[in-house]
């Protein structure tokens, strides 16, 4: 679901949604993904937004566009894993930004991460 209440720009939401569908195995390597105009109509988001999302996914090697024949999920067996890693990097980048706002030194940030990790392991 693409939402305008979500602070992320629409094109990023479209990218994340496709990544997610690949990560959970709903879309498999080689599967065809909807055409740009089809996805635009289905999600009620402009054609140019979907185009941008597809273009970036293509550059990132997530999808592959065959000239005049639409797009499909790239033949990359490592895909699901690397997508999860990208997700992790995004969360860590957000944490680094907040730490910078709090003027938290690097060693303290890393120490906080260790504490949180220990806390969650104890909870299990």
């Amino acid at each position: 679901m693409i939402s305008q209440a979500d602070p992320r720009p629409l094109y990023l939401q479209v990218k994340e949604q496709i990544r997610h569908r690949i990560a959970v195995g709903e879309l498999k390597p080689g599967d065809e993904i909807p055409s740009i105009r089809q996805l635009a109509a289905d999600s009620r988001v402009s054609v140019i937004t979907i185009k941008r999302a597809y273009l970036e996914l293509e550059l990132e090697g997530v999808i592959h566009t065959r000239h005049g024949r639409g797009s499909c999920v790239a033949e990359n067996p490592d895909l699901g894993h690397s997508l999860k890693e990208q997700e992790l990097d995004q969360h860590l980048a957000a944490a680094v930004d907040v730490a910078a706002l709090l003027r938290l030194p690097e060693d303290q940030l890393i120490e906080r991460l260790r504490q949180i990790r220990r806390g969650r392991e104890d909870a299990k």
Partner: protein
Amino acid sequence: MSNAPPTHAFSLRDLSRSFRYFRLDGLNLELPMGQIMGFVGPNGAGKSTTIRLLLGLIGAEAGEIRLMGRPVPEQVAEAKHEVAYVSDDMRLYPGATLAWHMRFVASLFPGWDGSYAQALLKRFNLQAEQRMGGMSRGEHMKAVLLLALARRPRLLVLDEPTSGLDPVARHELLAELMEIVRDEQRSILFSSHHTLDVERISDVIAFIDRGRLVDARDKESFLERWRRLQIDIPEGVTLPALDDVVEVSPEGRLARLTTSNYQPALHGAIERAGARIHEVQRMSLEEIFVASVMGSRTEERT
């Protein structure tokens, strides 16, 4: 003229028209086929005037207009077979039913799609046997939209289509508009105050203020170029003049800087001056609209 399909739904070149208290001044605007253009501007900016000029409803003093590849006003009648226009002040016959209007429009336009009209009746929750005079403002608007959509025009021109519609009807309308551009040979021009709608479905955005085009470009580059930076300016530090900075406010220690052409180089320039960047924020179309209109008004004064 060749019979090749037009590449653009319309184009306006150096279009001008004066009224007693208002002047539309040298407008240049075009819409490639298959795209949706959101036309945004404050009240009295010239949106409706531009649309009326485009459709040959009023005459221009200077400039060139092409609609579906045809010159206006010379061949506007031919062009209009493929164009449907809806405005929020459009009035139908109050004594006649919606069904009567549907038969009437169907008799005028061979492209009328009867089964689509029936589907729209259901989707918009309208009664064909109801008289127009008995309809609420929102129902009336939906009826006018139905009559335009069911003609399956190649260019749909909507002047404030969502005004008077409740959120559910607005949602239905946006869905119908997106259905239209499944076909890459169809285009939509719509003016709106509702910047959230425009931001969501437009491919191209045009801002107009006081009869002049402030900016027009594809939506993604619009949203990508504008940023708001929160910066910390220590005592004694003044920011140098920076390109494409539309506004810095307030002039105190914690400033908010708005740029219309965000580049990573801006960070270096600000930090070299001795200031610190806290945060870089994206802007909504509404914020961009307000900032660019205010910016262009300031430029006009100086």
